[in-house]
């Protein structure tokens, strides 16, 4: 295959595989907790970290990770204990992060907000070898948490009050969840982009829950869709010369549309068949 002869494509495909694998495993709990947009907020905060990295000539992946992790812990603590509601805390993250990113990047030599485009929307040519090493490590940590603690994260996401009454370490589990969300945001920053990662956390799960009948099935189908659209999005992006993040997200939306349509048609057919059987009696 032509595209595999390019080193940057090999790295982009590995990065897309990693993000396609991890994003739905985090998203399934975020959807359950109705915190679907937290990934968006953390993406904005990570942007400020990217700008700091560019300004100080540090690896932007690491500075983005530091910012996203601190932002994640802050938002969860505000949500759990602060006087401010989760929505307001998210809004502060959204706007503070992107404003900080734009202002800080403008201070870098030759820096303009346009320099952030690849980080915001993804670009297949930007993944470096050291990025892959960091992404693989983060991906491993995310999977250890989301798979290893799945019963606990399910319990807390399903009914937080019951989890508290059961004596589960709810705050620590929630902090862990937002931390792995921050890690997933960072893993996404090369091929998907910080502004689009939330879509890959949510859309595969939204599609999966249309056809699944259990949490475990939703989890598995979501991962399958995530990996498929992520890897195929990078391939399409290579041949069609389109931004990888946007391509991946449009594919994920396409999968959702097809699944939703198929389900609606199937439901209608079954209903009609049931009605005709009843009428024939």
């Amino acid at each position: 295959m032509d595209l595999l002869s390019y080193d940057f494509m090999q790295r982009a495909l590995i990065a897309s595989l990693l993000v396609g694998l991890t994003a739905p495993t985090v998203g399934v709990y975020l959807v359950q907790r109705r915190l679907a947009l937290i990934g968006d907020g953390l993406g904005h905060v990570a942007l400020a970290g990217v700008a700091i990295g560019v300004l100080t000539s540090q690896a932007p992946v690491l500075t983005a990770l530091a910012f996203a992790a601190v932002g994640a812990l802050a938002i969860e603590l505000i949500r759990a204990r602060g006087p401010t509601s989760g929505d307001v805390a998210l809004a502060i993250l959204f706007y503070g992060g992107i404003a900080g990113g734009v202002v800080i990047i403008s201070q870098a030599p030759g820096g303009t907000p346009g320099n952030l485009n690849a980080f915001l929307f993804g670009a297949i040519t930007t993944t470096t070898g050291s990025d892959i090493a960091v992404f693989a490590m983060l991906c491993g940590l995310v999977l250890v948490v989301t798979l290893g603690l799945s019963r606990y994260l399910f319990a807390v996401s399903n009914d937080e009050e019951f989890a508290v009454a059961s004596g589960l370490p709810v705050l620590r589990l929630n902090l862990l969840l937002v931390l792995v969300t921050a890690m997933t945001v960072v893993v996404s920053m090369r091929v998907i982009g910080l502004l689009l990662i939330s879509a890959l956390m949510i859309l595969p799960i939204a599609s999966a829950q249309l056809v699944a009948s259990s949490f475990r099935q939703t989890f598995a189908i979501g991962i399958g869709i995530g990996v498929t659209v992520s890897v195929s999005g990078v391939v399409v992006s290579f041949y069609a010369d389109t931004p990888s993040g946007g391509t991946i997200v449009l594919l994920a939306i396409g999968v959702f549309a097809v699944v939703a349509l198929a389900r609606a048609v199937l439901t209608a057919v079954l209903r009609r068949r049931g009605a005709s059987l009843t009428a024939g009696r």
Partner: protein
Amino acid sequence: MAPPLVHLRGASVGYDQHPVLHEVDFRLDAGEAVAVMGPNGAGKSTLIRGILGLAEVLAGSVELFGVPRTRFRAWHRLGYVPQTHSMVSGIPSTVREVVGSGRLSRKRIARPFSTADRRAVEAAIDTVRLSDLARHPVATLSGGQQRRVLIARALAGEPEVLVLDEPTAGVDAGSRTVLAETLTRLVAGGTTILFVTHELNEMGPVITRTVVIEHGRVSHDGAPIEVGHGSVTSLGGADCEHLDPHGAGPEPYSGLRLSTGVEGR
């Protein structure tokens, strides 16, 4: 003598520093089945939320199995059945998955489920007569069946005390009967039960004591309400009258008659 399973002494309980319950004395002993009744907003749910660590204890003390609530760690000894739980929206989850989450109170974090854990989950599902539906998504069940799922989830931790908030609210008569049968079997098996309810109906024969809360204070703590030949019926009957063991209670609650028993333990 064993300490009470639950003991409130002069406890004021509420939220954000605002008390809903004022200086409440209450104890729950092993083997009891206690109904907490009262009008909307009186503080019934706050009582059980104070016991379970879901509401703040602003004054006085709450002890669980002889241990102050703040130092209590054996939460598996209490099983909680909340009043409402949104099972229709969100990620699909099966009866077995939801009930399984009730077993975690007995587990050390990240330990995989053992055979004993799986057996306890299946036994809890069987207790509420839902074994045939164990693999079904909870959202597809009726309201009464969903309530039984929540009871099974609480039972999966094999608790000594089952605390239920309005277990029959919004449930059809058939499911209420099944719920009452389930609770009767649990009481007979030695489980202590504390539940909040507006009306006893099918639950009447189960209870051994009634606590009435009005305006954040206990206005009655004693025998179940009786009408006729020893049967227990709903509060609010037209021929009932208010009885306040403390003499100067607040406004009557729906016309309450307590015909037998020792009030004000």
